[in-house]
């Protein structure tokens, strides 16, 4: 066999493997979207769920998922950002830094039910936060941190050192250089990290059952006071997310239309993630173009 033949065969093999992956992807997405889409309607999206009769919707669960995402990012993003800055800009290359990194990474492979129970015993019970979006957000922070820290640190590293030198040589403080020069330059990469971690938040169920809970009290969308019990903005209320709802109707749901609710909810979840992905990507590209003045 000549090298050129090998080359052709190898390329074809790669294309073939990629094709299989694409087919699996299309099958998965197709399966979820096509089996779910017929059940998605305006009514489905805008009515509260029902625990025993058919015709329940997912309004509150959908909102809870989004709200939980926002809260989780509010908690985990600053922490991850600060830590990533520490790791990439301040930490020395020694065993202590290695230990810190390992410790953070270990978090990402803990089974979610363990983190859920930990969150339950510590935050829900000991700290009296109760079953709440806040507890859920703190629990999800555990999964989010390693992902976010790694991706933010990676994007900070990807910014050339010459940018740091440029800032420092102008008499700027390290902090100002990081904030004003390095961070904006790393923004597109950071956004990708956020997208990935957002996917994890949308998809997580086991950790939330014990922290954010699996009940969806009726929400009042006209009540903008976050301290009211029924206000949709109250972070201290229990909140069932879409993924938890899918889990619930599939495992213990007694509604006659459990199958279609689950299929519809999965489709909505996928579509929301899709919108989120492309939205964040578009914003990232826009920012990048603006900064580099792409022609």
């Amino acid at each position: 066999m000549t090298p050129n033949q090998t080359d052709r065969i190898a390329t074809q093999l790669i294309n073939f493997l990629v094709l299989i992956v694409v087919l699996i992807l299309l099958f998965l997405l197709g399966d979820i979207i096509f089996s779910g889409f017929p059940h998605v309607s305006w009514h489905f999206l805008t009515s509260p769920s029902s625990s025993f009769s058919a015709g329940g919707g997912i309004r509150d669960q959908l909102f809870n998922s989004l709200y939980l995402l926002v809260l989780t990012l509010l908690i985990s993003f600053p922490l991850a950002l600060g830590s990533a800055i520490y790791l990439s800009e301040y930490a020395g290359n020694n065993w202590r830094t290695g230990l810190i990194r390992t410790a953070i990474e270990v978090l990402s492979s803990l089974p979610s039910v363990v983190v859920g129970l930990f969150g339950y015993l510590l935050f829900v019970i000991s700290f009296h936060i109760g079953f709440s979006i806040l507890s859920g957000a703190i629990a999800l922070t555990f999964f989010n941190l390693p992902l976010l820290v790694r991706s933010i640190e990676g994007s900070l590293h990807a910014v050339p050192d010459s940018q740091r030198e440029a800032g420092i040589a102008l008499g700027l403080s390290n902090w100002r250089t990081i904030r004003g020069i390095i961070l904006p330059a790393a923004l597109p990469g950071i956004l990708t990290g956020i997208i990935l971690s957002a996917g994890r938040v949308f998809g997580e169920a086991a950790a939330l059952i014990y922290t954010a809970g699996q009940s969806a009290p009726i929400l009042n969308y006209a009540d903008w006071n976050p301290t009211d019990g029924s206000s949709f903005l109250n972070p201290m209320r229990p909140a069932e997310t879409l993924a938890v709802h899918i889990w619930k109707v599939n495992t213990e749901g007694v509604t006659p239309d459990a199958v279609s609710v689950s299929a519809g909810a999965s489709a909505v979840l996928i579509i929301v993630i899709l919108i989120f992905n492309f939205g964040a990507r578009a914003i990232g590209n826009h920012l990048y173009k603006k900064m580099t003045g792409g022609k």
Partner: protein
Amino acid sequence: MEAYDLNQTHIIIPPEEIALSTKQLQVYYGHNQQPSMTNASLSFPRFQITALIGASGSGKSTYLRALNRMNDRIARVDGEIRYRGTNINSPKVNVYEVRKHIGMVFQKPNPFAKSISENITFALKAAGITNRQELSNRVETSLKEAALWDEVKDSLNKSALSLSGGQQQRLCIARAIAMKPDILLLDEPASALDPISTTKLEVTLKELTKKYTIIIVTHNMEQASRISTYTAFFHLGHVLEYDQTEKIFQTPEIQATHDYVTGNFG
């Protein structure tokens, strides 16, 4: 390359007013016991261009970067750097103020991923200048001084990364002089540029000596002889010779200098 006697040196002290001087400056990288830069004692005259020449690895860039404490994070620097009667190598000295007075331009153009005017105003704002008029004045003057104004005056809000390499480097110079430093350190500023841009840059530097003291590291001996008044020759982490540029290039005292400027090594 021959083994030269590194202890045989010829270093003068220029008669002009001295802007910056070093005494017994030593630089150690990492945990190395062996200094990368040994006992450099040089004085730089005000409003002149001084060139630092030498082969790769001779320590000239290391020395230059030590002057405004850019090596703080990666190396240990012993000895004295005297500026305005203060030893600015002391850990007590405010290193940010040092760098405001001693600016630096690097080998590769490194503008920020911001607009042209923001590139200049960013550090000014950080230094507490908020008046818009003042800011736009500074942008204009510094760009004019760096001979870039005519090329970019209509596109100040365009990204700096859309400029050509030579323009980017002149923007970096403008960015540095907008801080109104005393001294400008340039680390092979023309090495990434084409001949036309290089000529423009050299003209610009000559102009700048009216207001600034310039110390430039260069690989290019013609460049050194074209623009500098004084030249220091670095070899293997030692300064072997320092004198007027003409002297260095025509009648050097030290054999190594002679061999280097005549192209025997380097």
